[in-house]
């Protein structure tokens, strides 16, 4: 099915099942420990051996020598895989650095060996006996020091590194009220709870991989390319994924080394990355240095807006696209954005939840707060005044829907924004109290997505697609979609996901999964409805409801259509140019109240509210969870998350969950989310968009702005920690 004209009325609009806050259908499995994650498939392949990864102890250079004798002689050892004996390996299209290093080393903790043994304990012990001598070479590890060497990167995701509208420099110089400020965001790590893990089993030249991966089809392709075998000979299975946030978009070393280990050992091998290896071995969100210039007339109208960002990556990598939202978020006739990329020999930079927008809005939305302060305007009013209903770079191109102002105004009213005092002026006992606001903005992306649906004689509908559920609620919204389309209750739908033998879906990333994957299921169900009608000899306007199909006076139980054999339909949703004609985006507003201890500078988040306008919300319960989870991660990036770079030896020092702090229960208050009622006919027949990344966009800035409102101290370098406040706090009374 091709979606190339805006949707009209369709079965989803009934909203009998879709749009309801249904509990997750896989909930009973996840809460009883019976959902099976990658490392836990004991029953799929007999005689599994254990692999333990050895990581490089230098950031850049070469392995001078590797002595495996002690490790090989250790009890239980079956095989040791290194670049020396692994055979020819290619690099995946989505990988920047090789997943098995040696002799050249590209980054710290790059895998250099896999020790396979009978038990985990034996593999781990033997891995510590691998003797490596290195020859270090000079690397570049300091973004601030590498700015002069940064280059203009090639086009990223169809967007040029630089954009320019009007005459920014002249217009900015002429504005009466100006801001020119520099912001920094540090490197972040996904820190999903389930480490990257895989079990590999070979049957002749066919490989099956039980793994933890967001993008099944991409990863089949990259496994095939890496190993030099045909895609048809690889099956990936990933029914449950213990969090990804972008860190499991791609094949990682656990998958490749499990496959190589299993080949070397002649039996199935399972590999999980040890937690302390994950942060330097896998990808991370790169640090940025950003310069923002905003110029406005005295009435608050922006006439010039400029955003530049510098980031680093390994050779061949890409920039963090932190200026992307500035191209679309606010009005202003004269505009410029620019991205520059330096070579850094740190581990590979790549996508993490809302890549680009998350760090971009961390800076931009502080800048907007600063600008409002300079203008003597309320920060909500300043944003509302500078709204645009068209793409500011291409004014002939409207937003399909844009209710940012309503998000801001609704939030202000619900949050009690009118009680916000002047900076440093509100006290509650020992706490300095402040409120902050930020806009949330992220584009909607559609990706083609296929599904297969089966109808059996009991009236049960089974959906099969290689879509993944990384905690997003895919299982449930896909079941709701099929139930709505086929007119059956939710418990008559079975959803099977994450298997490369199923039709190729959009996968989970970039908040494209919900709308795209359900649209694919919609297409397959539309085909199944046709087959049902045809089989039963009904008119094409037959109604599917209450487990029945009715046309005129004739009515059948749905299962009767499959009485003579299962009905199977498969289809894919593809997209025309609606996303080019209309800018499809999601919007929100974050409101945060913090308390800052007047003596110690300790920062506590007291209240959080998000108001979102993101098309039709397919399941308000799961969508709300996506947003509160993103608000939590946003609070982390505001207040604590920072990979500390060792600039001499080139690695992230705090590479575990004690050193890299993420929010815990005690850090997060009750959170509120409001979804504005909306449906967008330009996105798909589902009329939905994504929310999973919208939720993190702007949160950190709202926290930082609240800290400023509480204390009068403006911190432009994340995370906002008490040491950056202490010597500037108002005198304690």
């Amino acid at each position, binding site marked *: 099915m091709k979606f190339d004209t805006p949707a009209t009325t369709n079965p989803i609009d009934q909203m009998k099942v879709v749009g309801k806050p249904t*509990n*997750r259908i*896989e*909930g*009973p499995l*996840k*809460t*009883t*420990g*019976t*959902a*099976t*994650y990658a490392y836990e498939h*004991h029953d799929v392949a007999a005689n599994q051996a254990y692999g333990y990864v050895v*990581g490089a*102890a230098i950031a850049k250079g070469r392995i001078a020598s590797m*002595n495996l004798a*002690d490790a090989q*002689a*250790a009890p*239980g050892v079956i095989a040791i895989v290194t670049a020396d004996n692994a055979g020819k390996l290619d690099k995946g299209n989505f990988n920047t650095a090789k997943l098995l290093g040696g002799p050249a080393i590209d980054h710290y903790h790059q895998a250099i060996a896999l020790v396979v043994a009978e*038990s*985990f*304990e*034996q593999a781990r012990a033997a891995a510590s006996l691998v*003797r*490596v001598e290195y020859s*270090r*070479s000079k690397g570049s590890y300091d973004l601030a020091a590498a700015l002069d060497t940064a280059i203009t990167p090639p086009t990223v995701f169809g967007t040029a590194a630089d954009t320019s509208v009007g005459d920014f420099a002249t217009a900015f110089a002429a504005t009466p009220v100006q801001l020119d400020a520099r912001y920094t965001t540090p490197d972040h790590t996904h820190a999903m*709870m*389930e*480490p990257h893990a895989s079990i590999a089993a070979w049957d002749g030249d066919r490989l099956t991989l039980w793994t933890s991966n967001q993008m099944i089809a991409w990863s089949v392709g990259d496994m095939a390319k890496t190993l030099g075998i045909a895609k048809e000979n690889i099956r990936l299975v990933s029914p*449950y*994924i*213990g*969090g990804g946030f972008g860190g499991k978009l791609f094949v990682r070393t656990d998958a490749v080394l499990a496959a190589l280990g299993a080949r070397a050992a002649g039996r199935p091998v399972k590999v*999980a990355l040890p*937690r*302390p290896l994950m942060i330097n071995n896998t990808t991370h969100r790169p640090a940025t240095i950003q310069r923002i210039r905003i110029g406005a007339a005295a009435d608050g109208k922006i006439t010039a807006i400029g955003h530049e960002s510098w980031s680093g990556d390994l050779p061949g990598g890409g920039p963090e696209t932190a200026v992307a939202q500035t191209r679309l978020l606010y009005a202003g006739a004269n505009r410029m954005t620019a991205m520059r990329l330096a070579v850094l020999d740190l581990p590979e930079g790549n996508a993490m939840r809302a890549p680009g927008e998350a760090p971009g809005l961390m800076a931009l939305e502080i800048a907007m707060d600063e600008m409002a302060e300079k203008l003597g305007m309320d920060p909500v009013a300043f944003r509302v005044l500078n709204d645009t209903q068209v793409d500011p770079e291409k004014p002939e191109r409207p937003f399909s829907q844009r209710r940012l102002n309503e998000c801001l105004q609704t939030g202000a009213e619900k949050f009690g924004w009118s009680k916000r005092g002047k900076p440093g002026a509100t006290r509650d006992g020992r706490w300095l109290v402040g409120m902050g606001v930020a806009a949330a903005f992220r584009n909607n992306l559609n990706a083609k997505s296929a599904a297969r649906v089966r109808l059996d004689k009991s009236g049960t509908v089974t959906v099969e697609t290689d879509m993944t559920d*990384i*905690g997003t*609620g895919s299982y449930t919204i896909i079941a709701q979609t099929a139930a709505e389309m086929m007119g059956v209750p939710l418990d008559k739908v079975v959803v099977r996901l994450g298997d490369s033998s199923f039709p190729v879906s959009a996968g989970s990333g970039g908040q494209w999964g919900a709308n795209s994957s359900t649209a694919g299921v919609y297409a397959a169900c539309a085909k199944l409805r046709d087959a049902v009608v045809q089989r039963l000899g009904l008119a094409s306007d037959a109604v599917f409801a209450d487990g029945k199909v009715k046309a005129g006076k004739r009515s059948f139980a749905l299962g009767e259509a499959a009485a003579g054999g299962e009905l199977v339909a498969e289809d894919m949703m593809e997209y025309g140019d609606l996303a080019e004609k209309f800018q499809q985006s999601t919007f929100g507003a974050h409101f945060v109240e913090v308390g800052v201890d007047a003596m110690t500078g300790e920062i506590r988040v007291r209240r959080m509210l998000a108001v979102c306008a993101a098309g039709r919300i397919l399941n308000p*319960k*799961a969508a709300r*969870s996506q947003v*509160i*989870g993103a608000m939590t*991660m946003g609070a982390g990036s505001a207040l604590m998350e920072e990979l500390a770079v*060792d600039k001499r030896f080139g*690695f992230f*020092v705090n*590479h*575990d*969950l004690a050193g890299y702090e*993420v929010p815990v*229960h*005690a850090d*997060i*208050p*009750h959170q509120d989310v409001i979804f504005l009622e909306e449906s967008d006919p330009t996105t798909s027949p589902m009329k939905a968009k994504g929310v999973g990344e919208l939720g993190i966009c702007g949160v950190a800035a709202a926290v930082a702005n609240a800290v400023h409102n509480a204390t009068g101290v403006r911190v432009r370098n994340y995370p906002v920690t008490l040491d950056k406040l202490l010597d500037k706090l108002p005198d304690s009374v």
Partner: protein
Amino acid sequence: MQTPEEYELSRRGVLVGGAASVATVALVPAVAAGAATAPAATPTTKVSFKVNGADRELDLDTRVSLLDALREHLHLTGTKKGCDHGQCGACTVIVDGRRINSCLTLAVMHDGENITTIEGLGTPDRMHAMQDAFVEHDGYQCGYCTPGQICSAVAVLDEIRAGVPSHVTADLTAAPTVTAAELRERMSGNICRCGAYSNIIDAITGVAGAKA
């Protein structure tokens, strides 16, 4: 131009850089020289304990953690390995009535003890009230920290009932009560990166209220 001294690891440099820079692989030749010949076999020890009410006897490599005994030897994979060194709480189980991180303890240390895992609290057909509440309040997303959160939550309510104070208990002589602040403090050893905290506290509060 590179000078050898510049990139030579000195003892002081390692200390300044943090031991982490060399933790995984021995960089210093002296360590290699000191390596002893590996022993020929791995010694094992018998251990017996009750898991979810059933007697289990295992003959284990003494290095096997309680977590790996459950996951790899008994195939009770509901208990999760998130960090394997006591930083995340995903491996929380209840041993003789107390919650512990099963990754931080060796299986052979628990001879004769009574272990309850997530599978022992309830099954999809007969769910524990806490499991039910997590589903109802959407107190999870990816589900990986969930068994640990639920085991912790069940034990937390028992701790409060037993009068065990926490860091945020204001009055150490009074019986602690189930407040959001008490729950957040006591649950802070269980990380949820999906960020379901607000819903988890609602779920636990709901169960505590129903019991009260």
